[in-house]
């Protein structure tokens, strides 16, 4: 890896176990992610992908284990961590406009009694411009399409100016054009040395999008560079015996490799 000069990994998850009502949903998850990676979290439904990022951010109580970002406990580096929740978790009729939502990204740095000032508004506007939502700044959020809502959430995350991002299915329910725009933005963030953790569902685009993968199915199946980890054997382990999916994915993989070879020539 080129990150050998980096003293501590962007994220270290050590022996993490999470339980709901005494029923474990994640067992002994243990991995390290070097900084500057675009990381995909892949696994079947109910594999604990959302649980993993929520637990890593300290939003859920841990049964055991610990999480460190940049070599320090997550609580101490909260202002360096950004979050994009799933779109369905939100009441979109809530009386706020697009600008209100993006400004929410600034409060982590503002403290309790300070209100966002001119500089914060400038940052929020710049972030909206980046996701091409500035013309919608005064819109009530219910009057946006699904893709636009997702872009507003991304703008809020950008406004957090973090070094480590957790994103829960940012591609869910968005159109192809928005998906392209989002992935371009994520790559740009990565090239600035930021680390992005993205829960993702569409296996076909995995080798295209991510340079690091965390394969998850209630336990950690594998964590490593996409080229090493995105193999039919690993996917078979992750998706446990679902052979139809496996054959499909193997096919997709072969097609993608052919595509990649063609592009490099």
């Amino acid at each position, binding site marked *: 890896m080129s990150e050998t000069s980096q003293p501590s990994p962007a994220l270290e998850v050590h022996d993490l176990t999470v339980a709901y009502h005494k029923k474990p949903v994640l067992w002994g998850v243990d991995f390290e992610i070097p900084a500057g990676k675009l990381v995909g979290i892949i696994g079947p439904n109910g594999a604990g992908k959302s649980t993993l990022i*929520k637990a890593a*951010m*300290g*939003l859920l109580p841990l049964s055991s284990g610990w999480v460190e970002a940049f070599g320090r406990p997550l609580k101490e580096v*909260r*202002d360096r*961590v950004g*979050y994009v*929740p799933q779109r369905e*978790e*939100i*009441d979109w009729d*809530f*009386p*706020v*406009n697009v600008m*209100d*939502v993006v400004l*929410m*990204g600034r*409060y*982590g740095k503002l403290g*309790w*009694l300070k*209100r*966002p000032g001119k500089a914060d508004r400038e940052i929020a506007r710049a972030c909206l411009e980046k996701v091409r939502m500035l013309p919608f700044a005064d819109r*009530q959020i219910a009057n946006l399409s699904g893709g636009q809502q997702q872009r507003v959430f991304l703008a*809020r995350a950008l406004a*957090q100016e973090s070094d480590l991002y*957790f994103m829960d299915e940012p591609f869910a329910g968005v159109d192809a054009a928005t998906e392209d725009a989002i992935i371009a933005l994520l790559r740009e963030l990565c090239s600035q040395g930021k680390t992005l953790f993205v829960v993702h569902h569409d296996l076909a685009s995995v080798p295209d999008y991510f340079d690091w993968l965390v394969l998850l199915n209630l336990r950690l199946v594998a964590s490593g560079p996409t080229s090493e980890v995105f193999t039919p054997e690993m996917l078979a382990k992750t998706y446990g015996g679902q052979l139809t999916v496996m054959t499909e994915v193997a096919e997709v993989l072969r097609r993608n490799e052919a595509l990649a070879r063609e592009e490099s020539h």
Partner: protein
Amino acid sequence: MAGLLLLGMLMAFPTLAQAARIGEVSEGNVLDRAIRFFSFRDPTVRIAVAGCVLLGLCCGLLGTFIVVRQFALVGDMLAHAVLPGIALGYLWTLSKQPLHLFLGAVGAGIIGAIVVSLIRQTTRLKRDTALGIVLGGFYGFGILLITLIQKLPGDKSGLKSFLFGSAAALSETDLGLIAVVSLVSLLILGLLFPQFRIASFDPTFATSVGIPSQAMHYLLMLLLAWAVVSALQAVGVVLVSALLVIPAATAYLLTDRLHRMAGLSMLFGMIAGAAGAFLSALQTGLPTGPFVVLSASALFVGAFLFAPNHGVVPRWSRQRHQSRKIRRENTLKAIFHLLENEGSDVAEGKVSHQALVDQRRRSPLLVDGEIAALVRHGLAESPDEQGRVTLTEAGRARAMEIVRNHRLWELFLTNAANIAPDHVHDDAEKIEHILGEDIVRELERSLDQPTEDPHGRVIPLAMEESGGSGI
């Protein structure tokens, strides 16, 4: 404008109430009471009004968060669950000691909230069911206790007013309690407004940036319990939750920003409080709660009907405006088609009344009306002696735009979306009226500046493009 209307409704409301009771009470009597009320000479009136207005403010503010967090039922549950606490607080000293009643009520409210979470955690019952169980169970127990207390000796005169509220029975201690609760709520929610907004909108995100949304939730519940308890004497157990929900719901219909909603909600709460205190003061012995809630409901009905964006009447009038516009445009299009079919010049050509009746397949009377509408909007010249119609410049431009939109859309559906040419007409009939400039330009680009529609008819050029050539 909506504000004025609401104000008007409120002004009309007391008059109506007076009118309804002229039969029972002499007019002078009601007037005297009204004058006495507005002179504020009577300390009871001063305390009652101050209490109700402060409560309206406090409940309006808290209610804003209750409504956007979808917690309306929680307020209802708390309001009912405190009743046994009040009865037990009375039994503690066998007198109406405000402090003891207050402690009993807050205790019962907290126990009620705990029972709700217990039911949810240990059974598979959902939140609304758990709330319903606690609401009914606690309330029934409270009624039982209060009925029993009525049989005991001692001063229990005002205890029944906890059910429906009596602002006239407010003591200075009660008012002090209301003032403290209002002030604390205003201070906490005002200072931490942005944090409460984030925690209400997206609690997970709030926690991730270090805002303790769970703790803030409990803080809000505590303020709510206090507000409910302090409101009991004035508006009563049954209707406190209405004072929490209705002003906030009214404000929600009027704005899309949380801080404006909070401001409006407080304003409506205060108006409802003042109006309720006034109405119940017109005759002694009438409970305050129903009047406060009725005033709040009157405001809600006003917003429901006339709110600029979400109101029923503006929406209806927008639809009517749009359907009239579509009808005018269809008349224009019919005239254009007639001229096009007979090959005459759109600028000069005249269309006879009969031809238009045949083309539109409407009665002559209706077509008269349609022509009159075109003339009124400057789209057609007044018919000549033979009743023939010519389009004005504006009318011509719009007619060509509509036909152009229609044919472009048909072409787009057949070419780009692969829909059979005989299936595209009906869709284009609707789309032609709403296509904007931008979309039309994009259609032209994607269709490569077409000149004919799928049925082989010429797509008319837009006016500015055709320039002075005079088609």
